């Protein structure tokens, strides 16, 4: 295992020290692993808290700032944070208007956030949780763990964060967060595995011309293994998977082509070009986009595609000013 680290145990705290040094606009509690805006709680504003395992950077810490999150709690690598962290974050950013927890749908994240929400409730803080579950690779049913939360989380944090910044109340902010999640779908593809530092070796092994289709964001293998294929075909596979569950034709879309951490930007742009070509052929309009590394799996090579059906008001909220380490415009 070759990584820019000091040792497997110190990865997250060492990295948080770097985040603290890089971004004076963030307050980083390295020991308790809580990142908040340096400006503290915003009185009267609904606060947004998210969190999850580390290894997905810039998610979530890179999205703390004006127009997006108020706090983020990173767990250990690929391990959801503990309730103490979310409780501390929730108390730190509560401005009296309640707190939205944005939770990706994984058993660990859901359970730990649920415990934190109960504890915060005990302390008189109103908390509403919205769970993202956009990954079409996973079957959704009452009898399963349900779909994973992946790329849509970025959209939810941006759009709900914008509405909160405008002064909307907790139920409205939660409603728009749910709306974005419901209108979004994702599908991921891995060209390589990644190495969890504490494990020291790749989570799975892929042959020279094999890829994994339908991966999540924790370095886990996908639903099926396939032969590697040209970008144009991969775009079609991903869009077919997404489109089977979300009408794309003649829609105004927000499209993210996201790198898994080890994919160079030139390939992500190339992939985005292919996705646009396919969507155009379906009569869909890509009116907003993100191309880059936004929700990653350590050094994994590959990409995920996330598509959201926009409405005028979602587009307006997407365009609203945002000022975070990883997303910044309008300010």
């Amino acid at each position: 295992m070759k990584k820019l680290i000091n040792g497997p145990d110190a990865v997250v705290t060492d990295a948080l020290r770097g985040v603290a040094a890089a971004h004076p606009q963030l307050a980083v509690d390295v020991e308790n692993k809580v990142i908040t805006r340096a400006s503290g709680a915003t009185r009267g504003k609904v606060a947004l808290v998210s969190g999850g395992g580390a290894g997905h950077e810039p998610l979530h810490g890179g999205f703390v700032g004006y127009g997006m999150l108020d706090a983020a709690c990173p767990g250990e690598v690929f391990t959801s944070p503990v309730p103490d962290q979310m409780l501390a974050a929730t108390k730190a950013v509560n401005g009296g208007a309640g707190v939205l927890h944005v939770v990706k749908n994984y058993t660990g994240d859901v359970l730990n956030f649920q415990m934190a929400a109960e504890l915060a409730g005990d302390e008189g803080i109103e908390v509403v949780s919205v769970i993202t579950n956009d990954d079409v690779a996973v079957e959704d049913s009452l009898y399963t763990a349900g779909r994973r939360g992946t790329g849509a989380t970025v959209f939810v944090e941006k759009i709900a964060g914008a509405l909160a910044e405008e002064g909307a109340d907790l139920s409205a902010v939660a409603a728009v967060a749910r709306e974005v999640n419901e209108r979004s779908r994702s599908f991921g593809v891995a060209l390589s595995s990644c190495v969890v530092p504490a494990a020291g070796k790749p989570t799975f092994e892929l042959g020279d011309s094999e890829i994994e289709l339908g991966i999540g964001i924790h370095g886990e293998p996908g639903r099926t293994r396939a032969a590697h294929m040209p970008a144009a075909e991969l775009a079609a596979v991903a869009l077919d998977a997404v489109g089977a569950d979300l009408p794309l034709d003649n829609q105004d879309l927000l499209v993210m082509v996201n790198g898994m951490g080890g994919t160079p930007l030139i390939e992500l742009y190339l992939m985005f070009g292919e996705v646009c070509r396919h969507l155009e052929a379906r009569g869909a309009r890509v009116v907003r986009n993100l191309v880059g590394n936004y929700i990653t799996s350590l050094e994994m090579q590959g990409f995920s595609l996330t598509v959201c059906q926009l409405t005028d008001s979602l587009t307006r909220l997407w365009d609203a000013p945002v000022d975070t380490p990883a997303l910044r415009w309008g300010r």
Partner: protein
Amino acid sequence: MMDAAVFRAWIVSAAAVVEANRDHLTQLDAAIGDADHGTNLARGFTAVLGALDAAGVSAAEPMVPGAILTLTGNTLISKVGGASGPLYGTAFRRAGKALGDAADVELPALAAALEAALAGVQQLGAAREGDKTMVDALAPATRAFGKAVAEGASATDALGALAEAAEAGAQATIPMQALKGRASYLGPRSVGHEDPGAVSTALILGALRDAARAGR
């Protein structure tokens, strides 16, 4: 009849067996999960040992068994994260609560505590037997223990039945297709692998048998 020393010995022995199987548990998790189960539990039990030491030093009188398990559960919740943190944490908390203030634990009380633990896990995680989770070790173990106790078995025999059923339950997860937890994302590809949480449950219950045996 088991006293606080036995329960403390159980947790110490569980911590040791988790640490010894850390890489094994992580590798099981790599196959059908995200390669962190061993690391997670090892981190948690290390913290538990620290918490028990600290509590032992500060307390005016020694902790009762129920308090030991409650502290274990709280610490796991605070330190593990992931799916296993809240689930194991809740299991130990519920068991601790069930034991109450008793300084000595009789077998029927322990059986009730295990049932409370199982109920807590199922209430939180909604997994049923056959879903390929820790429930597949904990449920048959709880049943086997209850049955042995009801039939008047000795502590040694009842705890032996507990540990054996847990191990058999863990092994029985191999052919299962996961319906809960991370492994469920793999669908049919989850078949053929032992569930890491079921294996760690078997290890922890095995530690209980060993601690009780040594305490005798």
